[in-house]
Each structure stands twice: as C-alpha cells, then as structure tokens.
C-alpha cells in the first residue's frame, strides 16, 4: 500500500505546485513509483510545471465522473519512467469533485503507487479539504512571512480535524516545508526566521528551500527543479527533503549560511 501525501498551505503562491513536482521527481528518481495528483480544478498548473500540458487528454474529473479510466488519465513522465501525473480539469467546476469519487480514485492510486502526492489548491474550501481528506502525511508549505504562517496554522488545524485520520482518532503526520527562504532578508528582519516559524507552527521541519532563480527557470521550461538541475541549491534541498520523507534523518542546514555546510544544525523536532 502506498503512502498518500498532501501538499497544502492555505495561502496561494507559496510553492505548493513547485514542491509537489520537485518532491515527486526526487522520490521517483530513487526508483519509487510516484504519482502527482493535481486537485486544483479550474486553475491547474501542475501539468505545466511537469511539462506535460500538451499530453493531457483525460483528467481527474473525467475519472471521477466515470468518463475515463484511471489508466487513460495517468500521464507517464518522459524523463523518469516511474513518475506519473494525474492532471486536473481546467474547464470543469470544482463541484465535480465528489467525496465518494475522490475516495475511489485515491484508493485505486494507493494500490498501484508507492507515493501518491496530492497538490492541494489554495484556500480552505472544498478542493483543499478533499485533497487532504485521505492523506496519511501532510506537507505544509510555508513562506517565512506572517500571512503565510497564519494560513498554515489554520490548515494544520483543519488537518487535525477534517481529515479521515483525525476523524478516526489518529494523528496526521505533518511536516513543515519552508520555501522561498532568503537568509539575508531573514537576518535583516524583512522575513521571519526559521526558529520563529517553527515556534509558531510547532510541527517538525522537513526542509528549507532557498529562494532561487533556478526554481522559476525550471518551472518555465516545464521541468521539476529536481530534474532540471540536480546540482542547484533548491534541488539539493528538495532531494534532502524527499529523503527525510522516507524516514532518513538528515541534519537541516539553513541555506546561505556563511558558516559552512554544517555550521548551524537543527536537531529540533517540535511536537
């Protein structure tokens, strides 16, 4: 049985789709069978970031409504053969996502893949709650600024109450992925520091992704950053985050720290 991971944030534009694609590609490169699922019906983007926008025939809504089989809608990545995409519909209304339909699709994907990564839409409405509903693990993507942190806090509250795991009395495994981190600006006080964010959200840190032009460049050429340039700083950070997701314990390094690679190590795992 595969693991269902939801990538969520509450706020828009913090890097959910980028992180979904990058982590999906990183995990798939280890040989694991991975599918990334776009839940952002009406505003899909994951197909673009994955570079598969011209190969979309059927989508998630088609599968839910029984107009296509799951195998027809899944798109295999051309670069990594264990990586698949289940795109969202750009034209349909998000009301077409039914709880029963989503459950059916997720159950089927869970059987066929090692990792099912759901890219949640922004907000806390139907699409977002359905994307998180069946998850085993949640990755909360947060930028080091106050509005993003507060929205993430709200999402964590929903993860602890509105998901199947919470309703069954279990605790959802949650990880914080801090994206667009700029150590210079954090030091100047323009951005929240890592410690501040961790203190407010009090969930374990999965990784810190530095603010970088490489991310934008990769998105524009339709390639997850972990495929476009595996040596770039954000790609390395995503690779490490993916390894932590599979249970490895790696020290977390704050990007751009002048004191060297192991200068400041976070052993901290908040409750």
């Amino acid at each position: 049985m595969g693991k269902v991971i939801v990538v969520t944030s509450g706020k828009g534009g913090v890097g959910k789709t980028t992180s979904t694609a990058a982590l999906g590609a990183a995990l798939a490169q280890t040989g694991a069978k991975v599918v990334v699922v776009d839940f952002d019906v009406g505003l899909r983007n994951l197909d673009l970031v994955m570079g598969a926008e011209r190969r979309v025939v059927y989508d998630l809504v088609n599968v839910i409504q029984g107009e296509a089989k799951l195998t027809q809608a899944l798109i295999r990545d051309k670069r990594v053969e264990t990586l698949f995409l289940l795109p969202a519909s750009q034209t349909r209304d998000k009301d077409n996502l039914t709880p029963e339909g989503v459950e059916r699709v997720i159950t089927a994907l869970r059987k066929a893949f090692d990792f099912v990564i759901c890219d949640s839409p922004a907000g806390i409405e139907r699409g977002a709650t359905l994307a998180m509903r069946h998850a085993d693990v949640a990755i909360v993507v947060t930028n080091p600024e106050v509005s993003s942190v507060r929205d993430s806090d709200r999402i964590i509250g929903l993860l602890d109450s509105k998901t199947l795991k919470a309703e069954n009395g279990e605790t959802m495994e949650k990880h914080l992925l801090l994206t667009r981190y700029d150590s210079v600006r954090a030091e100047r006080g323009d951005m929240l520091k890592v410690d501040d964010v961790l203190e407010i959200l009090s969930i374990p840190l999965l990784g810190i992704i530095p603010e970088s032009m490489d991310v934008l460049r990769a998105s524009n050429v339709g390639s997850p950053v972990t495929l476009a340039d595996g040596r770039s700083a954000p790609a390395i950070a995503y690779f490490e985050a993916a390894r932590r997701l599979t249970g490895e314990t790696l020290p977390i390094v704050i990007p751009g720290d002048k004191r060297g690679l192991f200068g400041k190590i976070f052993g901290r795992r908040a409750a």
Partner: protein
Amino acid sequence: MPRYIQTNAKLTKLNAVLTQPRPIRLKGRSFLALALSPEMPVDDWLVQLDDLAARSAGFFLRKPIVLDLSNLEIRQDELRDLVAKLASRGVRIMGIEGARPSLLAPDLPPALADGKGTSDIEIPAAEEPSAPEAAADPVPVAAAPLRAQASMVVSQPVRSGQSLYHADGDVTIVGSVASGSEVVAGGSIHVYGALRGRAMAGTMGNATARIFCRKLEAELIAIDGYYMTAEDFEPGLRGKAVQIWLEGESMRVAALA
C-alpha cells in the same frame, strides 16, 4: 459526506470542541423566584400555606419557587415528603437553597446558592381574583458568579481559526494560542506558551478571573466584558510572561516575576 466510525473518542471530542464552528452558547441569567421558608413542624406550616392558597387560588401556580431551608433542621425523607406534598398542591420547587449537600439527592430539586434578596412579595388579599404579577417589575439581581467546576486542559496548540469555549471554569492550554484563534472561558485562562490570539476570561460575569501567559502577543484580551487590544499594551510587556486581571473597571497587566 460519508460518515466514519469514530474510534478514539477522546481526541475526536477535542477536535470537535476545537473546530465546532458554532459552539453551544451558555449564558448566565438571573430570574426572580419566590422563596418559601418552611417552618417546623411542617404539617402546621402546610396548613397555613393551604389557608393562603385558599385565599388566592393559583398564587403559586406556574411560578418558579425556591425552598429556603437555611434555618430548618429536616431529614432527607421529611424533605422528600415535603416536596411531594407541595407538588400535590400545585407548587413546583425549582431549587433548594441553604441545604446541606448531604441532604440533597438526585431525585430532589437542585441546590441553589448566592441568591440575592429583593423586596418582599405581597401576599394577595382574599378578594383579589387573580394573582398579582409579582415578577412584573423585578428588581435587577446581579448575576451570581458561577462556581468554577470542570477545568478544560488542552495539550496541543490552538490553531488559527479555532475557537475554544468553556463556560464552566478555567481553561489551561499547554501550547500556544495562534493569531486568529480565540479562547473563551468562564473562569481564568492559563497559556503555557505564547498567547497570540484572543483570550476572554470570566465571560459568565466573573470579575476575579485572570489571564496568564508565558508570552504576551495577544490580539485582544478580555475579562468579564472589559477588553483591551494589542495597541493598549505597554510596549515593555509585549513578549513577556504576564498576568492580566481586573481592578474595578480597569484592566491591569503585569509581568510575572
């Protein structure tokens, strides 16, 4: 939405409390009730009561009646007998004041405390056809402070958008209260973490309730209806461990040593 069987009642209950969009609202309210003070021997007193009832039929009907047992030595079986005899006369007892706790049983009316006296109720004259509206112009009675009973302890952070409501007593949070969340308590609020949201203590009319927190970054704090927003805090107290209490009509914030 499909329904799922809930296995861990405790956590589910907590989640339900934390996320219930509209919590059950409880409010303190005071009413004017007639207090009857029976005298020993009870049978003689009942004869007098019957006499009164004969003069003004229905005087006690449909009125909230409280039994005041402060100066009465009565056994439980006698009390049960008295309540039954009153009931047979159409006098329904809503509560008992001034009784020892051991005297009261689940099948007897509940204990009442902290009643405040008002002007004496006039007993109607014999000719009067209907009972006067004794409660028509009640003297306002200050809401009696509720006795703090059950405490609520939450051992996870209160997240943005969540609302914690506990009208009965103190709320203790082992963790932080996030910006955009609120904690409402009938008693005091204790936050073993940063208080960044709203905290309202003593909401049932309890001016002695206090708010304690390890780190003051609250958006709003209130005690017994008096409130203060973040802008009103002294800058030196921000981020400090503080306690907040009410002195008369002004709120006081002081750092904990």
